[in-house]
């Protein structure tokens, strides 16, 4: 395995990716036939989109945005605001993406800082944008506390399939990044910032590209979520706890791995829904808080890494 070059899509990697894409597509195309609860499958996909976004920025750069849902919220609200401004349907989605990318670019200088400054700064961005959208001053465009409705463009089946296509695209993009020269540069930075910088790796630029891509992923996830549920409030999408759940999903699966976000989201989201419909739903945040602490203290590299190491240990 170590003889495989770090860069380039070898035949083994292509086969692996194809299998992964086929399994993912099968789960979400056939799943609703066995268990007719499309909203469950859609929210699972939306969580996976977010987990891939976190996977890209945290798993590959080590920078964890605790205010990540600011992009998710802007994705959902961007579409609504676009419609309120009289843009067409397609243009509203473009507008949502453009607004999100604009904010991501404004935050680029944060990548010159240590990671905990980045974490708290993204949290500040989330709270600032949340209070701005929630402010009754802008209620005419944002709906503020009254909530935002996308009912006029409700197309559940179309949303479902577009979300699935996006998920497959995110999986493929993650593989492409991971096995590219660019991905190699990111891994070099994770190994040692100073060594990578001395070797001519443009550290802030490489991190910045991952950041903008990851913001794009969250914006698309938010737009799809808003489109599907059609009605949301500022605190449903600009949510601090949503971040924490998705971060737990990504880290549980294994940040920086190709399959981690899928596996982590599948397992933890099932647990989440299981607790959520039980009488213990009040304990949900407590359980996830404990899961987060246990993960970070005991297995910070996640499930996929754990399984890989087991498999390697068994080899002669």
């Amino acid at each position, binding site marked *: 395995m170590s003889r495989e070059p770090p860069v380039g899509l070898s035949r083994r990697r292509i086969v692996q990716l194809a299998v992964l894409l086929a399994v993912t597509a099968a789960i979400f195309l056939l799943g609703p036939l066995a268990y007719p609860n499309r909203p469950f499958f859609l929210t699972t996909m939306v969580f996976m989109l977010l987990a891939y976004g976190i996977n890209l920025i945290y798993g590959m750069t080590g920078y964890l945005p605790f205010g990540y849902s600011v992009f998710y919220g802007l994705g959902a609200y961007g579409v609504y605001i676009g419609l309120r401004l009289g843009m067409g349907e397609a243009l509203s989605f473009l507008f949502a993406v453009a607004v999100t990318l604009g904010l991501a670019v404004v935050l680029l200088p944060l990548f010159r800082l240590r*990671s905990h400054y980045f*974490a708290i700064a993204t949290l*500040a*961005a989330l709270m600032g944008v949340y209070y701005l959208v929630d402010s009754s001053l802008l209620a005419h465009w944002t709906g503020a506390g009254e909530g935002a409705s996308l009912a006029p463009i409700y197309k559940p089946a179309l949303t479902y399939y577009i979300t699935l296509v996006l998920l497959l695209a995110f999986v493929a993009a993650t593989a492409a990044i991971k096995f590219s020269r660019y991905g190699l540069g990111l891994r070099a930075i994770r190994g040692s910032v100073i060594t990578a910088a001395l070797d001519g790796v443009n550290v*802030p630029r490489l991190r910045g590209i991952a950041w903008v891509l990851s913001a794009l992923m969250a914006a698309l996830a938010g737009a799809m979520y808003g489109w599907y549920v059609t009605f949301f409030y500022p605190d449903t999408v600009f949510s601090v706890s949503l971040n924490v759940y998705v971060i737990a999903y990504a880290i549980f699966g294994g940040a920086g791995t190709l399959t981690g976000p899928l596996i982590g989201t599948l397992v933890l989201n099932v647990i989440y829904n299981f607790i959520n419909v039980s009488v213990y739903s009040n304990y*949900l945040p*407590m359980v996830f808080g404990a899961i987060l*602490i246990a993960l970070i203290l005991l297995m910070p590299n996640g499930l996929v890494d754990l399984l890989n190491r087991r498999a390697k240990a068994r080899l002669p």
Partner: protein
Amino acid sequence: MAEKWRCEGLSAALSLTVYALVVGLLEGVFYAFMALGLNIVFGVVRMINIAHGDLIVLGGYLALTMFSSAHLSALAAFVVAFPLFFVLGVGVYYLFVPKLEVSSDPEMFSFIAFFGLSMIIESAATLAFGYYPTSLPFSALVSGAFYVLGHGVPKAFLVMTALSAAMLGVTYYYLQVTRMGRATRAIMQNKEQALALGINSRLVTLMAFALGFALAGMAGVLAPYVIGYIYPAEDTFITVLAFVIAIIGALGDPLSSVVGGLVFGVAYQLLQVFLPYLAYPIVFFALLAIIIAKPGGILGKPEREV
């Protein structure tokens, strides 16, 4: 009432400005106290205690419970909070810090671990005290009000400011004069050198960490007055606010929080009076701007990785 209507236009704006300055300075001392614990913890372990806001919420509920169940004054809660939160701090220290310090990414992992702690405390508080905002009656401290150009200010604010100032003084004494406090500052400035000089880093760090928790709990007892009400879900908001105050001063230099608190208190009051709808967004975007431009804090040293 008639007198109130007479001051219009410029004079109304002027009297509101004076009012905002007075209340802003009174509250500013409290804000400095509120950020003190966060800054001490950050100073010694270089970890952002994202559960800081939860400690403050818990302190608020301590005062509320003692007042509503036994009619005990908030002063009693203020005193009781110190040992309670100190012990909590010792527990959290041993659970988190030794393990995180040797992890592959202490900065990020500590952020995640403290966020987990924050979720646990928030959800425990919701189960125990409910979801809805509650306020602490002024009579728990002192009833009545005094007037600044016709605008009422509760007398409890004076007591609150005095208590906050007293605790800032005690912390100043601890850090500047006592042997333990000087060792703490040595560790904050340069841990390796402090170790080389034979300072018992583990003990000093533990004491400062637990002190940070204790101060947060005590500030929490007074917080319902300044923030208006307490509810479990306001934890992250308070943490980020405390971070704003810490960074207006200098991160890792607890006493600079005094400057941060006063500046924030006055600016925040002025915003509340003149731009009420935009006060919150402006505060958080200002924090963002400060982190981007001067990440070590306005009075602090620059901190850059690349």
